[in-house]
Every structure is written in C-alpha cells, then in structure tokens.
C-alpha cells in the first residue's frame, strides 16, 4: 500500500466522488442529484430516515446499481461501474447490513472467495490460510482461519466480512449499519477498528442510525432526506440536535384533525414478545374509532409485532385480546374469524393472488359468506366486487382483470377491499402506502380513516414519519422491540418522534 497516511494530510483530492447522482425506481425518485466525496483516511457518515436514499447511494458507490444521471469519479477520473465486481476491482467494498458470508464454508474460504489462490490449477489451501490469517490479524480477530462460519456470532461475522474486504485490498470500505446487531462490547471493538483503518489510509463510508456512533467516528456527516442532500456537517460543528433537525427538516404538513369518538378497547396487546425481540414485552391498546401509528426504524420490530398480533407469527409470551377475549397465538384463521385483518407489507407475496381476477381477490377472505351450502354464488361475488370497485375508486374499475396488472396503489386497494368485505373490528396495516403514488396514497389514507369512523380499531406501522404524523391519532414509538414513548399526534413533532426512535447508544 502506498504511503496513504501521510498523503492524506497533503492531498485533498477525493478518492471516490459522486457528482449529481440521481436514481429512480419506477415512479419513486430514490436519489435526486446527490453529491458527496471521500478522501483516503477519512470517515464519511451518511445518515437519514428510512427511505431517505442512503442504501441507494451506497449501492451506487459499490456498483450494485448504476445511476440514471450524474457521475462517479474514482481517483479523479469518471468511471462506470457496471457490477459489484467492477467496484471491487477498484478496491471499493460494501459490507452489507445482512451479512453475505457462506455459512457452509470456513472463515478462510470466505475471505478468499472469488479470488482463491491456486497452485497448478488446484486450490491452494495453505495460501488461503496465509491470506486469511493476515486479514484476521488486521481486524484483531484471534480465531484459526479454518473455523466454520456457522460457529461464529454476529459480531465475529461482521469482522470476518471486513477482513474479507481488506484481503481484497479495499481502499474504500462501505459499512451499512455495521453495529445494528452487535453487543456494546462488539460495537466498541468495531469503532476502534474503524479508527485504525482510518490511520492506515482506508476511506470508510458509514451508514448508521446510531447518532452517537456517527458522532464518535465520522469526520464528516452527509444528511439525506427524501433522496436529496440536506446538509453536510463537519466533525467540529456536528451535534445530535443539528443532525436530527436536518434528517426531519420539512415543515410538518398541516393535518385536518377530526373529532375522535373512541369507543371501547377493541385490541389489547398485553406483554407480547415477538420472536426477534424476545426480551422486550409490548403493551398497547387501540379503541374502536381510533387510528394508532406504530413508528419505528428498520429492525425496530414493527412488522413482527403486527404479524404476531395477527397470528402468522407465534408470540414468545403475552396475550392479544380482541374485545376482552384472548386470541390463540399463531392462528391467523381464528383472528380473521374474530374480525382481525392484516394488510401486509409485501402485498405481492402475502396479500394478493396476482394472476387471479380482482373480484376473487376481493372475496377471498369472505368466500363462505358468498356461498350457500359450500356452493359459491358468483352473483354475490360480482355484487361485492362492483360495490368495492366503486367505493374504492379502483382504476381501471374492471374487476375481471388479473390483480397483477394493476398499479401498486390499486393493488393495495384490492387488499384493503378484501378486508372491508369482512367488516373488520381491528385493522392492522404494515406500510400501508409503500410503493404507492401520491394520489393513491391520499385515497388509501381516506379509506383507512373512513373505516375507523365506522368504529374499526386501526393499528398501522410505517417507516415514514410524515405518514405516521398525518394518519395517526396517537403514535406509539418502537425502538428495537421496545416501546419508547406514546404521543398524541396533535402534540407530536417529527423531532419528538425521531428522537425516540434513534438509539442512544449501542446497547
């Protein structure tokens, strides 16, 4: 390696640079003219809410996606990175949030994966061990190279992943939420390693929700919101408050607050632990007519909590009550029979029968009600579909079409329609407007509010703060499986919610 540590002091030339980079996915503008640069021996942090565009930016820098507009410069020259391999060949390595180690191989085989040393055409096991041992030493992990990956904990795996990048002579290391699943001690060790790498002249790009870690590690902080760059802070003048206000930024849209006439408690969650956060029990109540928003970042357990209430996941502990009567755990069928409905996050996978006509999708949860003696009444199904297509403003209003041919917003209306047909007592929604355009989003919000006005208890989860603030009457904040606060929406600000979602420290 060249004398990087000293060169960084002298040359201010960026090693890797993004200039005016934009990227769209379908109708969604994920990145809009974002520019940032990183020098050798520097740590750059990229922060923002979920969906702000952090991951997209990382993936463009690592060659996973190509930008629609703008350019990437490496060592001062414009480069086109068509694949991860292209980026790796230049020394740019992405350590992904979900680790990408082959569990069936040992540590050495993982470290040399894709660039295995060979002798006379066959694998050189000892050569691999040497490379692996050197890389493991750099990250300070004292394990034999032949250790099976399956026997390692998450923290050690993270270090192996970094060792793998170092063995590939990475000059730019992109770490995506590196401490998300680490213990406090492991996280501290990782933070130590990052400063060592900086000393050696490696450029580190860091994505993290943990602002205290960002403040400890980063030389500069870039804040993204809604795919745009909202600010850049130096280590010297960065504070937690400044970062949060840049992350949230926008004026809170004025929301029409309606008079809520809440009825009796429809849904009571008592000490429920989901599988992924078994240590934290959740208690919450939703009354008839009330819309409660579940705010939380990725990994906060929103989806798992909703799925546990509905019964597609078993609860580790606790009980869910519908109108005061306990619901058996892990039994969605009984939940539906008792009037509980879930609009899932991934509607293609969990919600719809894409090749089947819309009217069948509408009727799927209520088939027995549209049948006599087990025999379907096609007339009744057609009447239901006519009514729902009209009430939901389905476009096109033809319910004989395959559900898969509709736009995202209209597909979501179909899932909602299925539950409206059931007249639910409790409606659970997971990311109700993901992948939905602005117009349909407003329509879906109206549908949800109308259901609440008819006495339904609504609990929805969203990673978009403005959706939580504008749709909910009451907001429950969830952080790593734990309820960290409850706010009345009328009094809540984005800052107040966000500060309850962002972890104080690596716990």
């Amino acid at each position, binding site marked *: 390696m060249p004398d990087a540590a000293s060169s960084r002091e002298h040359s201010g030339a960026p090693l890797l640079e993004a200039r005016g980079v934009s990227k769209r996915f379908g109708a969604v503008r994920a990145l809009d003219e974002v520019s940032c640069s990183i020098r050798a021996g520097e740590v750059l942090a990229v922060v923002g809410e979920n969906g702000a565009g952090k991951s997209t930016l990382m993936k463009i820098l690592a060659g996973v996606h190509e930008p629609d507009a703008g350019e990437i410069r490496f060592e001062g020259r414009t480069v086109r990175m068509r694949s991860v391999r292209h980026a790796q060949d230049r020394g740019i390595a992405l350590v992904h949030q979900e680790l990408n180690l082959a569990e069936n191989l040992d540590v050495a085989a993982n470290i040399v994966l894709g660039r295995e040393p060979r002798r006379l055409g066959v694998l050189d096991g000892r050569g691999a061990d040497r490379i692996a041992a050197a890389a493991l030493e750099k990250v300070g992990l004292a394990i034999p190279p032949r250790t099976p990956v399956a026997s390692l904990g998450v923290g050690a795996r993270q270090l192996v992943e970094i060792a793998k990048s170092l063995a590939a002579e990475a000059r730019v290391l992109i770490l995506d939420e590196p401490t998300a699943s680490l213990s406090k001690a492991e996280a501290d060790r990782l933070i130590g390693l990052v400063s060592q790498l900086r000393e050696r002249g490696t450029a580190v790009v860091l994505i993290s929700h943990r602002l205290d870690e960002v403040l400890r590690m980063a030389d500069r902080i870039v804040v993204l919101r809604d795919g745009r760059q909202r600010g850049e802070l130096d280590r010297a003048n960065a504070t937690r408050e400044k970062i949060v206000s840049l992350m949230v930024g926008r004026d809170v849209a004025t929301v029409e607050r309606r008079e809520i006439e809440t009825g009796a408690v429809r849904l009571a969650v008592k000490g429920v632990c989901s599988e992924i956060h078994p240590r934290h029990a959740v208690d919450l109540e939703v009354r008839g007519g009330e819309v409660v928003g579940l705010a939380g970042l990725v990994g906060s357990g929103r989806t798992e909590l909703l799925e546990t209430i509905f019964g597609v996941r078993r609860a580790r502990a606790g009980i869910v009550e519908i109108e005061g009567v306990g619901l058996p755990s892990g039994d969605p*069928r009984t939940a539906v029979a008792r009037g509980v409905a879930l609009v899932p996050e991934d509607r293609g996978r969990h*919600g*719809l029968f894409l090749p089947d006509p819309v009217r069948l999708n509408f009727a*799927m949860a209520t088939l027995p009600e549209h049948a006599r003696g087990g025999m379907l009444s096609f007339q009744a199904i057609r009447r239901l579909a006519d009514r729902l297509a009209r009430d939901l403003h389905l476009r096109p209003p033809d319910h004989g079409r395959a559900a898969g*041919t509709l736009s995202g917003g209209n597909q979501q209306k179909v899932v909602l329609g299925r539950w409206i047909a059931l007249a639910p007592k409790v409606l659970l929604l997971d990311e109700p407007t993901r992948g939905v355009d602005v117009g349909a989003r407003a329509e879906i919000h109206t549908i949800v509010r109308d259901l609440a006005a008819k006495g339904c208890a609504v609990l929805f989860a969203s990673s978009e703060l403005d959706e939580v603030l504008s749709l909910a009457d009451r907001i429950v904040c969830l952080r790593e499986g734990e309820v960290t606060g409850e706010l009345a929406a009328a009094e809540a600000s984005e800052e107040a919610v966000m500060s309850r979602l962002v972890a104080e420290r690596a716990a």
Partner: protein
Amino acid sequence: MRKALGMLVLLVLVAALTSLAGEGFLSAYNLENLCRRTALFGILAIGAGLVIMAGGIDLSTGSVVCLSGCLLPWLLVEQGWSETAAVATVLGAGVAIGLFQGGLVAWGRLQPFLVTLCGLLFYRGLARGFTADQTQGFQGGYEGLRTLATGRIPIPGLTDLEAFDGPSAFAIPAPAISLLAIALLAAFLLRFTVWGRWLLATGRNPEAAAYSGVPVAWVTLSAFVAGATISAYGGMLFVLDVGSAQPADFGNFYELYAIAAAVLGGCSLRGGEGGIAGIVVGAALLQVLRNTIVLVEWIPDNLEYAVLGAVILVGVLADELVRRYSRRRGRRLAEDRSARA
C-alpha cells in the same frame, strides 16, 4: 380451458394421423380398449391433478394402485371377506394414506416430494410383504364386482368403422362411467364451491391464502386425501379389469403417467392452475400415443417411453412459448393503452 382445447386439437390430430398410418385404429375393439385405458388412467390423473393444483405432488400413485390392487383380491380370496367389507377397506386404506401423507405435509411441514417418494417405496413394499410376492387374483370369481371394470354398454346402431378382430359393435366400457362421475364431481367442486377456490388459492399463494384466513393446512390435507382415495379406487378398477395383480410390478410408473397427463392438461407444477377437462384430455392423449406406437408399423415398440417423453416435453415447451408470447402481447397492448390515455 384454452389449454384443454389446444390439447384436444392435438389429440384429434394424433388420432387422425394414426388412423392413416396404422391399421385398426378406428376398429370398435381398439376404440373401446382405448376408452377403457383412458378412463383408468384418467381417474388416476384427476387424483394427481388435485394434489398438484393444491401446490403439492404425489409420487405414490403407482404404489397405492399396487397396494389396493393386491389388497382387494387378497381380502376376498385369501381372507374370505365380503365384497362390501373388502371394497370399504381398500377405499379406507386410500383415505388413511391421504391423511398420513397430507398430515405430514400440512402440519409436519415436510416437502410433498419427499413424503410421497417414501410412500412410493413403502406401499409397494407393504404389498409385496403381505402377499409374499405372490400374484393375487380373483380366480374366475366375483363376476358381479368385476363388471365395474369389465362391463360394456353396447351402443346399438354404432357399428364397426374398420374391420378388425374382436366384437364389431362399439360399446362404452364401464370404467368410463367411473371416470365421468369422478370428473364431474371434481370439476363441480373445483369450480363452484368454496373448497375449490381455497384449494386453488392455496396452490397459487399459500402465504396470501393464510393471510386471508384460508385454512391452508386443512385444504392441503383434503387434497392429499382426495388424491390417495382416487388412486385406491383406480387401483381397484385396474385389478378388477385384468383379474390379477403381481405385487412386484403392478402399477409401476403409473404416478408418472398420472402426473404427465395432469401437466399436459394444464396443471402447473407451481400449483394453483389447472382444470379437470384438460386432465382427462391429457390422459387420453397419452393413451392414444401409446396406441400409436403399437399400431404404426415403423415405430419400434421399444421406443414407447422415449416417444412419450419427447411428446410431453414438446407439449410443455410449446405451452411455455405460447404463454410468453401472449404475456408480451398483453404488456404491449397495456402500454399502447396507457400511451394513448
């Protein structure tokens, strides 16, 4: 339905070519025989098709045919049971097999391929075990029961189309009545009942079905029970037809004929798709092809499996190409529409 029609056209085409290239295809004897074999295999294919439509697969069909084909004469002749008791026991064994396999799939979360592969070995082994590998036959008796498979309903006035050996008046073989009854019942259940919709929904997207409150496990179980019971009934008809069963090879490979007929008839192995009419046409096509190989002089009989394999492959391939073409066209039409709008 489109696929069933396509297969019907192919069936007519193959039949026409065979009657031109070979001798005796249109004789009353041959047609009646073809009809009988189509009925017997068609029944098995409906059972296989129901399981496939529910998103599963049943490899045990042939062994269930063997088990019920050996069990029936063994109970009647060796054990001296009454006809009613023996038939009920054989059908009961089918239900039990379906409950066993379906239960392992639905609640044990085992893969249907593995469960029924073990079934394929197990039921044949069982049949060979309790019979000590001895051929089981009716020894000339039980004529009444055997008319279920050997009976013929002559059609007066419809005389031979082509001179050949055997009877010269066309008759409907009794198994065709069984096929018709089972096919009508299955088609009715699939198209017009809640159960049928649940079955197709479970095959199409089991997760979305569970999220809709469909009792996915029970539906899966019911498909396996229907499949195995139909197989057991089919096995009974097979042995009633030929009069005896040799445990080592009775029903060998029948699961593959059944699955192939279902797939030719429009069932997707991904589940959620298919219809009974198509399955019956698929079964007929396979039997006509086997017949073609026998009747057409210049096709060596030994090539039977190779010809069947090739035809099934071409059929599946053609279907996939048509599907891709129509999907592309559908997309283009939608784009045109949105461009104009």
